[in-house]
């Protein structure tokens, strides 16, 4: 990479540096090729783009607003902190951006059934929503452990007509839900589209999901320029698989003066081994169809991840993030559960906004970055989702349930 001359925004799969590719059974290659062609054709088809744009405006509520949070920022070294409000989208997170695009593609490919994996349930809810809207049948795979900690979202998906299948093998979380979705896909690929929710998986998923999410950063870049008259010093996002992070980073990739920081789930601390910080604590390997950083043992067995946030509880990460880390264009840092929960509560109390616990990792990062920059700093945070689904988890964490004595 010769700094300043090559546009990082033009990077496309299958490979991002040494990462990405297609490590999949041959049986899926034809479907991936079909999807790749359908995607690339659609993205230059004015009719497709107009339909997606119309859904953004009149269904999911784009453009999402930017909110300045001065009372929160007092705790962040006095820097200006701006939130990109993906939490205000229909279904409550950024996930709908990708889902609407892929659901339209599903229809264009003549397929009638979508399957999805979900961790926190946000992607599952978004997929169930789009399936209802477009008359597609929908099955969502969800780790049994996650169906317990995100029971509200299970009910939402079922209300929307989706079948939710708890996955009771392995660690019973997101990675196992992806395994099961891949098994379903390889069996039913003729009529089924696997509506993958993050920027991981085999090519073209990392590129396609990014392209459906990059609208976040495109809007935010213009909004920040409008509001502050300049670009932010730092852009903060939480990183599990990494779709909201790549979505907000992408528009800034060629603005070399803007620092991009991804905050991984530090769980109980990277040093304890109980975390989900794949870049900080993992090694390059192959998981779920792509080469990327993976939490793995010396034999290459995937190590179970741990996070209070179901949506970040994943032992891999999108290959473009691995590449951005490798090239130094973005930094990745772990945020432990406790620090994320402190930031969660702080935003509730200072601004009247209940964030998703996933997004609270980015808020914790913004506090760190704001303190580093001081009062002249300008920090953009992608508030990727809202916290309704996390109320029970948060109430337990802070001891707020009746009879808990607080």
């Amino acid at each position, binding site marked *: 990479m010769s700094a300043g001359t090559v546009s990082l925004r033009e990077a496309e799969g299958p490979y991002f540096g040494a990462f990405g*590719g*297609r*490590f*999949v*059974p*041959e*049986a*899926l*290659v*034809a*479907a991936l090729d079909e999807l790749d062609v359908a995607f690339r054709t659609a993205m230059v088809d004015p009719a497709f783009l107009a339909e997606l744009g119309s859904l953004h405006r009149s269904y999911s509520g784009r453009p999402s607003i930017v909110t300045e949070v001065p009372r929160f920022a007092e705790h962040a070294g006095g820097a200006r902190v701006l939130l990109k409000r993906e939490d205000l989208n229909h279904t409550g997170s950024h996930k709908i951006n990708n889902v609407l695009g892929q659901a339209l593609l599903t229809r264009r490919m003549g397929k009638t059934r979508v399957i999805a994996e979900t961790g926190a349930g946000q992607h599952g809810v978004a997929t169930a929503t789009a399936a209802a809207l477009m008359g597609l049948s929908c099955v969502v795979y969800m780790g049994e452990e996650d169906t317990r900690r995100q029971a509200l979202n299970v009910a939402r998906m079922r209300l929307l007509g989706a079948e939710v299948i708890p996955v009771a*093998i*392995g660690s019973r979380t997101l*990675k*196992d839900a992806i*395994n099961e979705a*891949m*098994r379903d896909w*390889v*069996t*039913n*690929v*003729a009529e089924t589209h696997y509506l993958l929710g993050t920027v991981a998986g085999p090519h073209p998923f990392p590129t396609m999901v990014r392209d459906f999410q990059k609208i976040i950063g495109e809007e935010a870049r213009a909004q920040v320029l409008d509001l502050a008259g300049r670009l932010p010093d730092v852009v903060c996002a939480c990183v599990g698989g990494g779709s909201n992070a790549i979505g907000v980073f992408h528009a800034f990739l060629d603005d070399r003066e803007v620092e991009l920081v991804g905050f991984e789930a530090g769980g109980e601390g990277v040093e304890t081994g109980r975390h989900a910080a794949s870049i900080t604590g993992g*090694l390059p*390997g*192959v*998981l*779920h*169809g792509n080469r990327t950083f*993976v939490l*793995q043992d*010396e*034999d*290459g*067995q*995937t190590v179970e991840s741990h996070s209070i946030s179901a949506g970040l509880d994943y032992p891999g990460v999108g290959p473009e993030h691995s590449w951005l880390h490798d090239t130094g264009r973005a930094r990745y840092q772990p945020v432990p559960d406790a620090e994320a929960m402190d930031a969660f509560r702080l935003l509730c109390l200072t601004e009247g906004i209940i964030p998703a616990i996933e997004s609270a990792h980015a808020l914790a990062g913004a506090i760190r970055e704001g303190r580093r920059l001081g009062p002249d700093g300008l920090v953009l945070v992608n508030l990727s989702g809202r916290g309704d689904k996390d109320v029970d988890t948060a109430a337990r964490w802070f001891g707020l349930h009746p009879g808990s004595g607080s």
Partner: protein
Amino acid sequence: MTGVGPVLARAKAEGRAALVGYLPVGFPDVETSIAAMRAMVAGGVDIVEVGVPYSDPLMDGPVIQAAVDTALQQGTRPRDAVAAAEAVASAGVPALLMTYWNIVDRYGVRRFATDLARVGAAGLITPDLIPDEATEWLDASDALGLDRVFLVAPSSTDERLKMTAQACRGFVYAASVMGVTGTRVSVGDAARVLVQRTRTVSDAPVCVGLGVSNGDQAAEVAGYADGVIVGSAFVQRLAEAQDRSAALGAVRSLAEDLAAGVRRGRER
């Protein structure tokens, strides 16, 4: 080293299909799994497919998933699979390791290939590695003369069938159905069509896997394929047995049933 080529050629000369049997190392424990591979051989299996346990076996159905989970909980490691291959090869039967790619990636492709060659293993079957991503493995297997078996599927285009078959050495693994491993009531026509399509683009032997569980199904597949691959049915015999001796007996008797099947296939 014992490659699979001569064994497939011998079966062909005898007017029958070869029988390929799969078991994962470490289920129910390493020692018993190796004994079970020997029992398969005693029952008439021509080539042993040694499964390397992996935490995320996304091409496998519930039977093999559960067995592999047990193997991992017992601490089974890739080097146990190498040792199992050595035990099989030392009995004069070719052993192919069936492994998901991250295991080899972490071990080191060249180092893994070198260890396979050292113990006399035939090579690898790689269910989640397509030739497009296999440059390092193609080089290492060429340098060490190891077999490399890639999969083709009913969904493969003619162009990919040709490319994949040309990249294979030993045989081409034809996945008979769209799906994961597991026993099935019938193998169906997709396998026959896939074998025919593969033969039009390649002279390599074609073995059929996914779904074969008894002698009659083996006979049916043996009617058109060079080899019949059986996995989940063997694992199920091990899982259902009351004790070690019953387990080994059940594995051997299934192998005998299947071996008779592959010999019946061409008679009809």
